């Protein structure tokens, strides 16, 4: 993926399924890894992201680190601290995005204050404009509920970006409807309550959770707690169109930092974990096809 994606985006609340992001889910289940940009520094981060791409990433959620990450668990929070310490800023973030040599689509995941503050003009427009320029195809803003998202949705429409929302296990009624109206690219389905973080167990209720978004026009990617190929398989078998994996990958980065492992080695580990997850997802899809849907 490169800068040319900027112009190819045709998303918007009125035309949701035509976005490149949606397309990334078209050829089988999507693997959507998350890393914090600049963790622990610019160059290593670039190497890790490219490794994930080699490992089969369809979309990369690239975290722009914010100092108060209130939706994150300790793993991501610590990664964010490392990235900030390593000098990551919004401007450097966009440089990193532009410098990446990856096939996957890029989605920016960050908190609203950074979006809001960017540029001289106040409001989200300058950030979205710059993101589009840097080849970012979509945004996930965990602290921006649909109720507050009007301005951002408008800017995304203007610059052809998707706006992804997170549906929690507790989301329902009006709120679900409002999100459905605003979402584009894919919907991020939160597999369980709580914050991000790798778990050894993974919610068995994927099917129930997916039910509520079953008839949405966007692909459904499930995240929160997925850490192995076996998890990935189970989730996709449960009906997900994609899997989002963050903390499990960041654990590898963190271990690399702590043990002083060479960047290349960590990158290799990330690539092989990515492959495992991609294959797990594919296996889940096969299982799914061989069994009656909705089981």
């Amino acid at each position, binding site marked *: 993926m490169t800068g040319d994606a900027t112009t190819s985006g045709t998303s918007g609340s009125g035309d949701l399924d035509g976005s490149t992001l949606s397309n990334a889910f078209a050829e089988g289940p999507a693997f959507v890894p998350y890393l914090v940009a600049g963790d622990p520094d610019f160059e290593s981060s670039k190497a890790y992201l490219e490794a994930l791409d080699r490992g089969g990433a369809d979309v990369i959620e690239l975290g722009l680190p914010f100092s108060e990450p*209130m939706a994150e668990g300790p793993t991501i929070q610590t990664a964010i601290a490392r990235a900030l310490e390593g000098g990551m800023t919004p401007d450097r973030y966009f440089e990193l995005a532009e410098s990446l040599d990856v096939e996957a689509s890029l989605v920016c995941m960050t908190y609203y204050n950074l979006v809001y*503050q960017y540029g001289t003009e106040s409001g989200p427009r300058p950030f979205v404009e710059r993101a589009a320029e840097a080849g970012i195809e979509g945004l996930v803003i965990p602290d921006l509920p649909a109720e507050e998202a009007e301005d951002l949705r408008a800017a995304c429409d203007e610059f052809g970006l998707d706006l992804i929302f997170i549906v929690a296990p507790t989301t329902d009624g009006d709120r679900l409807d409002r999100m459905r109206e605003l979402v584009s690219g894919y919907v991020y389905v939160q597999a369980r309550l709580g914050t991000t973080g790798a778990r050894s167990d993974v919610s068995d209720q994927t099917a129930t959770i997916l039910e509520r978004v079953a008839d949405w026009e966007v692909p459904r990617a499930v995240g929160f707690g997925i850490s192995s190929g076996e998890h990935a398989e189970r989730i996709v078998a449960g009906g997900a169109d994609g899997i989002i994996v963050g903390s499990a990958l960041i654990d590898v980065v963190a271990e690399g930092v702590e043990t002083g492992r060479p960047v290349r080695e960590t990158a290799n580990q990330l690539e092989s974990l990515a492959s495992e997850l991609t294959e797990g997802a594919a296996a889940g899809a096969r299982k799914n096809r061989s069994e009656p849907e909705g089981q």
Partner: protein
Amino acid sequence: MSSDATFGDYGGQYVPEALMPAIDELTDAYERYVLDNEDGFMDEFRARLQDFGGRPTPIQRADQLSERYGCDVYLKREDLLHGGAHKLNNALGQVLLAKYMGKDRIIAETGAGQHGTATAMACAHLDMPCEIYMGRTDINRQRPNVFRMRINGAEVNPVDVGRGTLKEAITETFRDWAGTVEDTHYVVGSVVGPHPFPSMVRDFQAVISEEARAQFRDRTGGLPDTVVACAGGGSNTMGSFAAFIDDDGSDGDDRVDLHAVEAGGSSLQVDEEAGVAPNSATLSTGEEGVLHGARTKLLQDSDGQIMESHSVSAGLDYAGVGPELAQLVDEGRVTPANVDDDVALAAFHRLSATEGIIPALESAHALGYLEERIGVVEETEKGGAALGDSILVTVSGRGDKDLETVIEESADRDLDAAPDMDVFREGIR
């Protein structure tokens, strides 16, 4: 009282989706129980504030300050509230509300420990299990408050990430809540956070000014020219102002000026590079942004990263401020101000030595503001002109919790009214 979720551009509900149902449920409970007094909630709240909390707290004419400043200085004595600060008004209200909502677990964050101790006390009183998140650094600095929480039966959960202070504790509490919203209520400690917290906490704290306004009228037949209150997150400020906001002089009535005093810290200069603002003067120097669930004024760098704030007073040391207060400042109804650490410390000593009231360092900022704005007035001139003839200052808490800090911080400075501290330092260093 309005239940609107925003104050002009400020406010709102910027929270992770997982919390939205809890926020909706809370908004509903706020409207029913607090605004509509359903099931007599507010009656029970007020009765408990009286019997358990010790309300009403008095207003007191500060004779020696009045003479010094050449005008009538009255103090609203929230330092006399159970627990030693206004914080209990809010904590008791929220814990009681959680009970009415059928929640069976309470969590809260705390920095200096005042909100944590108030919440722990309210939970013990109302028989609710309670867990308090507190940064490891703060735990080590605030042992007496940690002990008070534990002795009141609360668990204190150390937060080891980052610097281990308030910011991290808030994040950690939201994190707990995100996983436990169904049975747990998060008692936010000030007029910050997503709606309905800013309105709800204001309403619980409004008892301060409701009482003070009536007491002042009883005592003097009129209203004060100026009300002065310190502002961290702003719960004391909003509580002290709420009943006076309509006294804006609009219908030819007397206008009551409202001054919010923030922590000027050691300087108003920020260090962008290090991401440090050596103050907590959000209203005066902050810029609009989104933090901890609300759009409001913030101390942030040009990228939007939140700065580390600083004040000698731990309770004012917060990079945000209540959205309603931000709006009131923009509208010109509230005058933002700040005084630095030195002025606050000198005011701490002045009130202690001349009035026999040891104020919280937070409250000392409001008192220091009088010194800075008016200064000592000669006997002949009737002073106070800068802030009018009668001033009401809220003493938001007592300073027992600040003794160690004051000993440390006073020793190297040349402060008005401070006794020689050497005898205390020896044992401490």
